[in-house]
């Protein structure tokens, strides 16, 4: 996605002025004042009025805005949950500062999806200020979720096909992730995306899977023991060793990631629950390191080993047929697919104790 020119970012279409949002008048939402002089007109300007969603958007869309603070898009609570779990309360203020500096740019407002491109990719109006009920996938969703989800879903990794839902179904993100799921979260789902109900769940559409009338016996055999992605995803991105700091030269925050690579690892489910009862799930290496936040203080993650560094993932490159589901023994007995102790860095063995597969499912004799 090419960045927009400065003028392009703020060019309003005449059509917008005839819409219900356009008829409200610029100053009603953006402040500023009527003047032929640019600086005077822009004094007191609010570039993204939806940062105050209650006042601006909530006047008409109150039922959505009321729940929005609970959504992970608004709260970024998932980061906090995980980082704090590896720390102690005394360290929370320093970590809060670090997350404010390095993570908060991902915070999303109503306008970041429905009116403009997100700030993390330079901003700019999507379509002449028209309010897009369904945000355009590549200019909003994958503009932020591009490195992993976007690249996987759109098939940007050489030699790895895009997700079948995109290749064959031309489905965009909203085909599975409904507005109501994105606008709020309830219960444990408000703390971490894998802690609540599966939204979406594959079975929402593939209801026949595992039922008596399912013609694919492997679905019934594996039941809820194996997450769908274990058989139907292919290689996906993992990262190592992210460190954050503030530049001495510019004063701007920056990060350094040691490594990014494709991998495919089946491991034990770190968070089995009623909603996700699987014994085996796919695991992605996340870039946390004991020293990730050392710029902000010494030993800020003293409980680093409480959570795995190979963690639950749901890659977005689903295929009907994959190397591991070609036959039973493509997976059974295939040690390369499983997170065995030898594939984990020695210093991370303790953290991953609960997800490492000590004994892989045995090869099935007499079956190809």
């Amino acid at each position, binding site marked *: 996605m090419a960045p927009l*020119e*400065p*003028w392009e970012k*703020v*060019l*309003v*279409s*005449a059509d917008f*002025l005839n819409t219900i949002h356009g008829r409200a*008048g*610029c*100053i009603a939402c*953006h402040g*500023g004042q*009527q*003047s*032929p002089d*640019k600086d005077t*007109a822009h004094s007191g300007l609010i570039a993204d009025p939806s940062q105050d969603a209650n006042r601006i958007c909530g006047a008409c869309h109150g039922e959505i805005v009321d729940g929005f603070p609970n959504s992970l898009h608004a709260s970024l609570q998932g980061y906090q949950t995980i980082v704090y779990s590896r720390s102690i309360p005394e360290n929370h203020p320093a970590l809060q500062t670090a997350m404010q500096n390095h993570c908060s740019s991902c915070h999303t407002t109503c306008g970041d999806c429905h009116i403009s491109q997100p700030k993390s990719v330079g901003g700019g109006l999507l379509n002449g200020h028209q309010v897009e009920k369904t945000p355009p996938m590549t200019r909003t969703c994958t503009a932020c979720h591009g*490195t992993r989800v976007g690249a996987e879903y759109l098939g940007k990794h050489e030699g790895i096909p895009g997700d079948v839902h995109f290749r064959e179904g031309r489905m965009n993100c909203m085909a599975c992730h409904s507005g109501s799921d994105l606008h709020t979260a309830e219960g444990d789902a408000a703390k971490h995306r894998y802690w609540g109900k599966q939204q979406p769940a594959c079975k929402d559409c593939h209801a026949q899977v595992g039922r008596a009338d399912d013609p694919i016996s492997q679905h019934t055999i594996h039941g809820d023991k194996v997450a769908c992605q274990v058989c139907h995803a292919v290689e996906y*991105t993992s*990262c190592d060793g*992210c460190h954050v700091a503030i*530049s001495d*030269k*510019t004063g*701007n925050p*920056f*990060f*350094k*990631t*040691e*490594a*990014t690579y494709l991998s495919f690892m089946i491991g034990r489910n770190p968070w089995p629950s009623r909603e996700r009862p699987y014994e085996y799930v796919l695991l992605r290496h996340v870039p946390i390191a004991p020293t990730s936040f050392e710029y902000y203080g010494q030993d800020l993650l003293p409980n680093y080993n409480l959570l795995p560094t190979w963690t639950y993932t749901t890659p977005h490159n689903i295929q009907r047929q994959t190397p591991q589901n070609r036959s039973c023994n493509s997976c059974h007995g295939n040690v390369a697919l499983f997170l065995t102790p030898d594939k984990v860095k020695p210093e991370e063995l303790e953290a991953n104790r609960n997800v490492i597969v000590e004994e892989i499912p045995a090869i099935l004799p007499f079956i190809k």
Partner: protein
Amino acid sequence: MRQTLTLIVALGIGILLGACTAQVNPVPTAVPTPTLPAAVFTPQSSVDYCVSCHTDKDALIQTAKPEEKAPSESEGVG
């Protein structure tokens, strides 16, 4: 005696009437009033400057400030 009583009653009525008359007709006092400024005709602007500029591509190209982005020191995939 009767004359005295009649005189007292007449005097009382006279005092009462006199008091009421004084309340009904207060003496007006001149109050200074501030001088109002002369009315000035201020026509409401018929031009929406926000719209006229932000729908004009050429005007925006002329006036948009070039963005100076500090080089990022980040390394690797975010």
